[in-house]
């Protein structure tokens, strides 16, 4: 093991975090897989044409198994499964990343407001959050979609909104515990201004926890989005969403299990990778984990 002593350590905090992160091998694997999936999603149009390969139907080529021409075979309408999965990555990643980002920003704002102002404001906000949290997440999302109507934008709105209460609670509790720490009192005794206390002393101590929770929530969002599409409340066919693909293929599952297997395993691998990454980040962002 590399022994590092204080005297020759001139590298930045980022390098420190990377050093701790790369010692967690499963997390590194997660990061590599995520990078791979993201690049596939980014270059989806280069890999396979959306209109001609993922959407257009070829009844003569339906229900083929794996071959050199169709790597993952074809589905019930003769569409290339590989092309559809590649384009499906865009949906899953968009849901995961965008919804967790919106939920994070909204939740942080609400949670931090509640914690800073305290008293009545805190009470009012948190009781409202409690009310929302008493509704199961998936039910809330379904209700919102029912109210707003189908569509990608509405689905993102619905899923983000149901993320906000959870994040508000996490951020609030983080900020509350940190604000009561003695080093915040010590900072006040040093004459540090409130704004500086929030940005230099409170947020850096909370940010690790927040990032970790956001990363972990991505996998839940991806599975949630797939679930919504599976029951027909999410992305509508013929769009190549992984959950929707599983749903379409259930009719052929007995004879052609690969039609369910490939989109299913894509969901699992993506969700798992984000969880592994989140786990690694949790350790890496905590300076006390340093040896």
């Amino acid at each position, binding site marked *: 093991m590399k022994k590092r002593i204080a005297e020759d350590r001139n590298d930045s905090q980022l390098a420190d975090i990377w050093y701790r992160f790369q010692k967690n091998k499963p997390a590194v694997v997660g990061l590599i897989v995520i990078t791979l999936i993201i690049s596939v999603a980014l270059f989806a149009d280069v890999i396979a044409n959306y209109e001609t390969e993922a959407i257009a139907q070829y009844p003569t080529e339906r229900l083929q198994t794996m071959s050199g021409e169709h790597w993952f075979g074809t589905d019930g309408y003769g569409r290339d499964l590989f092309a559809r999965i590649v384009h499906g990555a865009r949906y899953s990643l968009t849901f995961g990343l965008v919804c967790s980002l919106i939920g994070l920003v909204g939740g942080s704002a609400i949670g931090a407001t509640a914690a800073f102002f305290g008293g009545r404001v805190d009470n009012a906000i948190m009781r409202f959050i409690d009310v929302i949290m008493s509704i199961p997440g998936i039910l809330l999302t379904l209700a919102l979609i029912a109210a707003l109507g189908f569509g990608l934008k509405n689905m993102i709105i619905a899923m983000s909104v149901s993320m906000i209460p959870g994040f508000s609670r996490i951020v609030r509790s983080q900020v509350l515990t940190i604000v009561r720490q*003695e*080093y915040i009192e010590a900072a006040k*005794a040093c004459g540090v*201004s409130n704004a500086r206390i929030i940005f*230099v*002393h409170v947020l*850096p101590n909370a940010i690790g926890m927040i990032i970790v929770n956001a990363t972990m929530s991505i996998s839940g969002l991806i599975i949630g989005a797939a679930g919504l599409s599976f029951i027909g409340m999410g992305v509508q066919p013929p769009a190549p969403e992984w959950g929707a693909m599983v749903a379409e293929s259930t009719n052929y599952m007995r004879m052609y299990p690969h039609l369910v297997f490939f989109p299913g395993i894509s969901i699992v691998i993506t969700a798992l990778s984000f969880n592994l990454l989140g786990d690694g980040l949790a350790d890496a962002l905590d300076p006390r984990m*340093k040896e």
Partner: protein
Amino acid sequence: MGQLLNIKDLEVVYQTKNIVVEAVNGINLSLGKKETLGLVGETGAGKTTMALSILKILPERTGKVIGGSIDFDGLPILDLNETEMRAIRGARISMIFQDPMTSLNPTLTVGEQVEEGIILHDTEYKTKVEVKSRVDEILELVGIEPSRKKCYPHEFSGGMKQRVVIAMALACSPEVLIADEPTTALDVTIQAQVLSMMDDLKEKLGMSMLLITHDLGVVAKICDYVAVMYAGEIIEYGTFEDFFINHKHHPYTKGLFGSIPNIRDRSKRLNPIEGLMPDPTNLPMGCKFHPRCKQCMEICKVKPPQIYVNGTHRVKCHLFEKQEVE
């Protein structure tokens, strides 16, 4: 009086919806230049509350100063606004907190934390190089290798952390240093080191120091004046000599001295003061110590005692009024 810090009739309460905790009940104290005042008392006597009110950092929603005044070098502390107060905190009056384990920010390096005060306040150290060299200088002063300033607090031991906390407090060369039980969280050998270091530094930098402690040994070692606090009041005040040579003491002070284990005394049991601190939400009538006092008289139960003065020595007890009359 020409003193640096004057506290007059200070009264502080903690207020919540249903309860009023009377933490500090009319305290008079003064601290001269280059003096060390030891503030002794049981847990919950209001020592820390008093210290926090000097810096005006009482818990915002609950802590309230309801009476008295604090005067620092001609400035009425209690009337200053936040901006004016911030210029004083850390620069002219700074504070060392009780627990070094929690009074450092875990996400900033030690150097960054020492440097913060220097950058924030209008000190003589303006450029980056000057600030850096000041950080090195102050770390060396408290006995930490300047090369270790890039370390995070968790890489330091308890004693080292307390040194860092002291370095932070000293960074801007304050005129008054409030040390709130600086050695409570440390073990005995480190305690001795840290104390003698603080004593040295006080001499070197010409600071005044308000040392809050419940360790009489510490008081004996470095204090010029001693104040004993009980239930938010100062019940005895005097010079070091008054305490350790004079024999006329408040029964509570006697109890405090009596509860120190004696190495030559072979008795098996310790001698604590019987009973507990009175509930600060419901303080007793008359002398606040009377329910625990072995020399309690009828008058103690109804009338709060006057202050008996003998030179520099002041005792708040009915016992001595009587003696004076006799």
